[in-house]
C-alpha cells in the first residue's frame, strides 16, 4: 500500500464521525464514506500532494451536498430526523444537539462540524467549502446563534447546569 493509501485509510474513522454528524444517520453516513473512498481511489491521479485528509473531507462534503439536493427533489421521502422518541434520560442531551444540527443550513452545519468536531482550521474549512475565510466565519457565527436559540427555547428544563 502506498502512503497515499495509508493516509486515506488512517482518515476513515474520522470520515465516519464527520459523516455521522452531518447526516445524523449511521447508514447514510457510511454510504457517504464508501462513496468518498471509491471516488478518492479513482481520482488518485488528480491528487497532487497536499493534505489527503482535507481532500477527503472535501469529497465527502460535496457528496453530501449532492445527496441533500437529490432528497429535495423527492418530496415523497420525509427526512428521518423527526423520528421522535421521548426526550428524557441520558440520551436527551445528545438528541437536542442532533435536532439543533438538523435545523441548520447545510453550509453552516458543515462549517461548524469541520471546526468543532474535526478540528480543521478556518483556512482548511475555507478550502473544503471553496469559499473565503470570512464566509466560513459568518457560517460558523450563524450556526452558533441558531443552535443557541434552539437550545434555549426548546428545552428550558435542561439548560446547562454548570
Amino acid at each position, binding site marked *: *500500500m502506498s502512503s497515499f*493509501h495509508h493516509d*486515506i*485509510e488512517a482518515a*476513515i*474513522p*474520522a470520515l*465516519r*464521525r464527520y459523516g*455521522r*454528524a452531518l447526516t445524523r444517520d449511521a447508514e447514510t453516513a*457510511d*454510504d457517504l*464514506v*464508501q*462513496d468518498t*473512498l*471509491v471516488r478518492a*481511489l*479513482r481520482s488518485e491521479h488528480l491528487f497532487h500532494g497536499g493534505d489527503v485528509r482535507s481532500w477527503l473531507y472535501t469529497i465527502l462534503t460535496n457528496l453530501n451536498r449532492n445527496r441533500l439536493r*437529490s432528497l429535495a*427533489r*423527492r418530496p*415523497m*421521502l420525509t427526512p428521518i430526523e423527526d423520528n421522535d422518541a421521548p426526550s428524557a434520560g441520558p440520551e436527551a*442531551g*445528545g438528541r*437536542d*444537539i*442532533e435536532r*439543533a*444540527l438538523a435545523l441548520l443550513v447545510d453550509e453552516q452545519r458543515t462549517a*461548524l*462540524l469541520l*471546526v*468543532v*468536531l474535526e478540528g480543521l*482550521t*478556518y483556512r482548511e474549512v475555507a478550502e473544503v467549502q471553496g469559499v473565503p475565510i470570512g464566509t466560513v*466565519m459568518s457560517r*460558523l*457565527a450563524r450556526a*452558533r446563534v441558531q*443552535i*443557541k436559540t434552539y*437550545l434555549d427555547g426548546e428545552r428550558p428544563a435542561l439548560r*446547562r447546569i454548570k
Partner: protein
Amino acid sequence: MIDRNTSVTEDELHVYVDGELPADRRQAVETWLANHPDDAARVAAWRAQAESIRARYGATIHESVPDHLILSRIMRSRRSWGTVAAAAALVAFVIGGVAGWMARGASAAAPSAVALFTTDAIEAHKLYIGEVRHPIEVKAEEDHLLPWLSRRVGTTLRAPDLGAFGLKLLGGRLLPGVSGPAALFMYEGPSGERFTIYCSRLDASRTAFRYDGSDNFGAVHWIEGRYGWVVSGPKDKDKLKAVASAAYDQLEKRTPPPSQGAAGQLMSRRGS
C-alpha cells in the same frame, strides 16, 4: 492604542473559542470577557455546543470500521468489477434466485397491490425521464451503484445490458415503493428516448408479462420471486415487449448481453 487592544469583535470571540487567536490577543480577549458577562455567556454557550457535538459523535471514531469500508476491500472490489465488466459485460443486474418464467398461466396477483406498484413505477418513469440534468441519482459508472441499490432493495441487483436496442444505462436511483425501497434504472437511446426498469419487493403471485399503456407511455411488468419488475418507455408495445424480454432473459438466465459493442464501451468507461 488601548482602545484597539481592548475592544473585541464577535469574530474574535469565535476565533478565541476555536483556538485560532494569536497569542498576543489572548489576554485582551480574556480581560474583555471578564468585564462583559453577556459575551462571556455566549462564549460559554458556544463551547458547550461544541462539547455536546463531540459528546454525541466523538465516539464514532473508536468504532471498528465495517467491512465494506475497509480500503483494501474497496480496492479489490473495484478491480473485480472491472474484470467482470470486461469478461461478461455486466451492465446488467439480476435478481438472485429468480425462478423460471414458465408460469405464464399463474394465478393473477391481488390487483390492487400490483396496480399500485405499476402506477408507482410509471409515475417515477414520467417524473424522471423529463429531468435533463438529474435523471438519475448515481451514474452507471459509479462502482457502488449496484451494491448500494441491492442493499437497499434487499436483493442482488444487476442492470440488463440493452445495448442491442441502442439503449445505454445512465444510472439509477432509489425510490420509495409500495412495500419497500425501489430501484429505478434509466436507459437512454440514440435519439434521447428514455426507458426505465423499476424493481422492488412485491408480495404477489408470479405473473407473466403484462402490458399497460397510457397516453404517451407504455409499461410491461412481471412478478417473479417476490419481486416486481416494470419496464417503461415510449408507447410502443412491441418494442417494450422486446426490451422486457431481453431484460428478463438476462435477469433470469444470466445470459451475457448480446452486444459486444456495449461491452467494450463499458470496459473503457470502467477501465483506467
